[in-house]
């Protein structure tokens, strides 16, 4: 019963808002805000399922490729740098600068150097999302409990085991936080590169809808990316809860 009430509370507002949108826009003649009815019909037409296959999948492919490269490279480089305090301290200002640089600012240069192809888009995604992962990994590895670190050294735990069972798990809360920031940045980078190069993908779709003044199509692309972003975040939450269960339990007050 209690469960049912919670679900009802969670669903009430979304349903109300969608209903209000449907009702208010029903007789809309404004070209910018077409009736929701039209948008839904267009959504089914465009995206189910040829659009998802031909337009969304390339976008997701670029995103996944760039994002996973950034995660692996960021963690590996981060662990390597954190092992060497002097080098990490020396490079810190440069890394902070690269993180603060809006990654989109280099997209035009990426295009000029790498062309309009897939390599360019993947590189732009990697560049957008590697810095938070790298910097958080350094912070996380350095933040591993000193007592634990010293005990491991005293007991002469082999390097590989130390990395696998002490360093990485100890740093994982920070790493996961950096990876989460990278998720949003990667999505933005994919879409911007697609918009600018107008090759394929959701960004290019939405850009060409703008140029041909096809507003319902544009709305469907926005809604689609809303679902995509939401789903990716949900998956991320799941993964985070699973990998960091021990950490979350430690933080939660006993209840």
């Amino acid at each position, binding site marked *: 019963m209690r469960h049912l009430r919670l679900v009802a509370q*969670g669903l009430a507002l979304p349903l109300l808002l969608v209903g209000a949108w449907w009702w208010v826009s029903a007789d809309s003649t404004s070209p910018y805000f077409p009736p929701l009815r039209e948008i839904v019909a267009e959504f089914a037409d465009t995206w189910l399922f040829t659009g998802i296959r031909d337009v969304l999948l390339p976008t997701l492919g670029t995103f996944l490729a760039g994002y996973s490269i950034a995660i692996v490279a960021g963690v590996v480089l981060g662990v390597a740098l954190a092992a060497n305090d002097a080098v990490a301290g020396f490079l810190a200002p440069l890394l902070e600068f690269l993180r603060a640089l*809006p990654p989109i600012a280099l997209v035009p*240069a990426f295009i000029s150097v790498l062309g309009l192809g897939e390599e360019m888009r993947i590189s732009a995604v990697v560049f957008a999302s590697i810095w938070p992962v790298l910097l958080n990994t350094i912070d996380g590895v350095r933040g591993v409990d000193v007592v634990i670190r010293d005990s491991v050294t005293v007991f002469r735990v082999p390097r590989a085991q130390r990395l696998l069972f002490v360093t990485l798990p100890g740093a994982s809360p920070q790493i996961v936080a950096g990876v989460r920031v990278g998720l949003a940045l990667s999505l*933005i980078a994919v879409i911007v590169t697609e918009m600018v190069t107008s090759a394929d993908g959701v960004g290019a779709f939405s850009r060409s809808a703008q140029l041909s003044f096809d507003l319902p199509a544009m709305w469907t692309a926005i809604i689609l990316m809303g679902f995509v972003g939401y789903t990716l975040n949900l998956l991320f939450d799941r993964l985070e809860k699973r990998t960091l269960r021990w950490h979350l339990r430690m933080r939660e007050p006993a209840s």
Partner: protein
Amino acid sequence: MALTQPHRGRAAEHGAALVSVAVRRIGLLVLALAGWELLARILDSRAVPAVAPAFDALVSTVPSGPFWAALGGTLQSWGLGMLLAAGIGLPLGLLIGSSPLAMRATRGVVEFLRTVPAIMLVPLAVLLFGATVEMKVVLITLSAVWPLLVHAAYGIGHVDAVARDSMRAFRLRRRDRVVFLYLPSALPLVATGLRVAATVALLISIGAEIVTSAPGIGYEIALGQANNAAPRSFVYVLLSGLLGVGINLGFGALERRVLFWHASQRARSTA
């Protein structure tokens, strides 16, 4: 004398540390420039200028009107967007956060809306407003409002239970409870939300300028690349990076200043 001895020693030590930091910073700068030069030579592309032409472009661009106009264009939309986002997001977040029911009811909607990549709205905003400052302000507001709202809501929701119950037991007035307990408890997360929102706002501002040619730093970056004036384009890339660093440092300092009493900051200052 005995008392001043260690003091002077510490001052000298402090001075030496400063010198060593300066030496390392300069060393890093030299190394970074060398790396840049090397990269430019390897790529040998008109898109990536070597250090010398970039420096020439820097000298000729910075005193010029367009440079300051571009900086102003980006900063103006960034500032207006941040103001609007804070004006909407913070009160709404505090209201939502103070009621568990409102938290549960709005959660789905907020989670959905904040994951829509704001850059997807660029084509719609361009058709509605053209490539103007208004367009950028709307986009920035729509992207910066979510971190502010969410952080404010979580901040006010996580009030220390003992403090809350004691205040209630002592029958403190509602207004006092809000001013002395709820708002200060929300402050750490609000400060974090501000920092996140400020970064997102800069990213969206420059992204929108690159995609739509609205006036600002992003437009100059894209224009320089398109006109084979890569050195000038890189001056603006550097500017955007410095702006990002400035925003990080500025909001980080604000966070520490507002929160000198908070545990996270105390821990940091002793570490």
